[in-house]
């Protein structure tokens, strides 16, 4: 038993800093995935063109959509990873409880999403640099993004990654309840993908709720609200775990 009397804030802060250092390796996998997505984007993500007699014209599109997509996949699995037993046992280096451990994890997921979102967006410059090095005729938007639009898009990207990360954290927490869930949950998710009719009105309205919202602050409220609910659910689930389970 420890004689130290620490406030929750101090404890969470210390655990967060520890996690930031201890989990630094997860960013290597993020970098590897983003580089892989850049390689996959090397041939372009779309193309349009026409051919008239002796003239063929092709306009190739490049984008960081692949990088953002891969980063979301990374965020999902990274969040599951930090709920696993080996990562949770690291917390016992500190005077800790479930609440502080979860809060530190949530802070880590938040900051990792910021890093992942920003690097995903900035990777667009690498794609453009590759075009320049190859000597291709690259056209840029005549009416480019304003600073405000750039930041709005960057925040939206971060929020999407955070959303997927929070979802992964909940699934990771649920899986810890019982070993069999390690199999049941992925199978159920895959089965859901095959069986569920995504044109069903409920799914369409949910899709519109998040992805068709074009007022940024409303979108941010929706995503942050959902993320809070997901994290709250994760905390409730993990509170049901036995000590060191």
């Amino acid at each position, binding site marked *: 038993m420890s004689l130290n009397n620490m406030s929750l804030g101090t404890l969470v802060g210390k655990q967060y800093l520890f996690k930031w250092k201890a989990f630094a390796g997860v960013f290597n996998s993020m970098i590897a995935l983003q580089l892989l997505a850049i390689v996959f984007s090397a041939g372009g993500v779309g193309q349009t063109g026409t051919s008239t007699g002796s003239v063929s014209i092709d306009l*190739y599109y*490049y984008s960081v959509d692949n990088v953002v997509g891969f980063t979301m996949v990374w965020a999902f699995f990274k969040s599951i990873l930090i709920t696993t037993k080996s990562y949770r046992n690291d917390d016992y280096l500190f005077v800790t409880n479930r609440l502080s451990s979860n809060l530190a994890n949530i802070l880590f997921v938040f900051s990792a999403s910021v890093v992942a979102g920003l690097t995903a967006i900035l990777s667009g410059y690498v794609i453009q640099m590759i075009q320049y090095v190859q000597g291709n005729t690259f056209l840029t938007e005549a009416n480019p993004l304003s600073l405000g639009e750039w930041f709005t*898009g960057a925040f939206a990207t971060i929020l999407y990654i955070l959303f997927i990360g929070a979802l992964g954290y909940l699934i990771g927490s649920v899986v810890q309840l019982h070993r069999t869930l390690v199999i049941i949950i992925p199978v159920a998710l895959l089965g859901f993908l095959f069986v569920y009719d995504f044109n069903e009105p409920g799914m369409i309205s949910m899709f519109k709720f998040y992805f068709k919202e074009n007022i940024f602050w409303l979108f941010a409220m929706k995503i942050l609200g959902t993320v809070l609910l997901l994290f709250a659910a994760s905390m409730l689930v993990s509170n049901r775990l036995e000590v060191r389970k």
Partner: protein
Amino acid sequence: MININGVFAPLLILFVLIGGALLLIRFISKHFPTMRRKERWLLPIYGAVLVSCGIILAFLEPFEERTASSEEERLSSLSLYSYIESGNIKKIDSEYIRKEWDFTHTDGDLRISSEPSHEFMASIFVEKVPGLENKVEVTYYETPLYVDGEDMSNYIRPPEATLSKGLLKLNNPVEHQYVELYTFREPFPYNQFIERKMVGNQNESSVFHGESIILIRVGEEKTLDLDPDSYIEYVN
């Protein structure tokens, strides 16, 4: 802005990026011993490379700015054929004249052919004009060809015309022109909140074909021998 558009500029940039990354690794290893493990320095290096690429691109501005047209502009593009059919060729705005050639031909006979005859890049029309005498005027008209709102005309080489030994020959500049352009589309989280149309984010058809016409004007007293395989038509 500095304009380094030599052959070696891209190689120099690669060298600077790789060299800079290596120097940064050495600097971190030397001055921040706690960051010796690669887990710690890989992310800062990666971030530094991404930011450096952004700074270099902002500094060089190596790309061409799109001159994307509005939908109204594309739909209002005029029909050169209707001007030809109605005989109002002179009313065609000079902005659609892409190239002009003036020749002098003193013989009474003039042969005209195109190469390749079946895949020549423009429709050919001939007009006999009183008072032109020995002059042969060749004018290449072109209305824009839009791909995703971008006017591609500037990337297409116009045909070539030569007059030699009584033969006016129209040629494609090369056997087949391949124009490849590249552009960057903003990622989906950006397009969700941008009301104006950005590149590659248009719902309507992205290709608008223009018209290409070569008009040959000769004196009315000339006798013309038109290559039957070249699809040459008289204006009147």
